[in-house]
């Protein structure tokens, strides 16, 4: 599957099938700090991802001056 990441922007090819939680753990990403987007919607941690899928792992943390 194609996995798009940000900060910095990059794209990875990862073999499926897998589940979202396992993918994040393999990439060393804290699930509290991202959303996983497939198409125009979100997927939960136990969602299955297959070879043909394209997903974006989008960081949600922002922070400058308050």
């Amino acid at each position, binding site marked *: 599957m194609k996995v798009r990441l*940000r*900060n910095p922007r990059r794209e990875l090819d990862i073999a499926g*099938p*897998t*589940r979202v*939680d*396992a*993918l994040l753990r*393999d990439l060393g990403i*804290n*699930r*509290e*700090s*991202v*959303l996983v*987007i497939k198409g*125009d*919607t*979100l*997927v*939960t*941690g*136990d969602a*299955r991802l297959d070879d043909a899928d394209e997903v974006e792992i*989008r*960081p*949600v*943390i*922002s*922070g*400058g*001056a*308050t």
Partner: protein
Amino acid sequence: MSERLRERPSNRPMRKCRRCRAPEVVIELRRHNASFCRDCFLHHCREQVSRTIEEMRMIAPGDRVLVAVSGGKDSLGLWDLLLGLGYDVDGLYIGLGIGDYSRESGEATRAFAAARSATLVEVDLPTDYGFDIPGAASATHRVPCSACGLSKRHLFNKAALDGGYDVVATGHNLDDEAAVLFGNVLRWDRDYLGRQRPVLPASPGFVRKVKPLVRLGEREMAAYCVLTGIDYIVEECPNAVGNKHLGYKEALNAIEEQSPGSKAAFYLGFLARASDLFADDTAAAASELRTCPSCGSPTTAEVCAFCKLVTRVTVT
């Protein structure tokens, strides 16, 4: 079956939406031990904001609200939520002169306002005050976030007073407030702890300031924007990368992953059981206010910090 597919125990039930029991869930909120379908998640966000505004008496009937927008998920999401809840709310965008980041965030904000026929007030630091944030950081030899925060706080208040608004709303969410509290507690900064409230009442020279998103995390706000199609700026401000605030958030998220609900317990527990302990320090500081001879804003110094910054940056 792949090892990675076996990780869901066979005796664990499939997730269903907590509210409507539909099987098509789009998000799990471990803090609430709940999953939601799209419509019920959006309902959850509206309900949390509505409840916060009501319980904390943030906005009264008939109030004119000015929401400070940056083009990011929190501020655009807040504006959308307030419009949806029926409030009389306009947006305020401040151009900070931070290269492509400011250009793109301004475009996203204008597009959001135009799509909803909403009123957007704009202030541009380079055009209106003759400096930008990178220039201010360079002239003051301090981190950019320092001049940025100072300028925004001053200009939010000024724009609200000039426009006759009753209240300024900002998109600070639960994660923002928990991270600020974490930093304030690490230093035991009594002044900041006394001022860290989701509602700062109006006082002479200051409009009321409110933070209606304090019960929603930033993951919830990003999800709200994705699910409602709000085209927000995902890339972080280049000046914020590596700052202390982000480090505090990472530390709190590491705790949250092990113990869901920790951030909410930390911040909401502070509001319920500890913030009043620091109120006296705040009252003492307020009694020492005078008027800035340059702009008329209340200040504890001879000249307010923003006017001092403008003088320093535009003279050097």
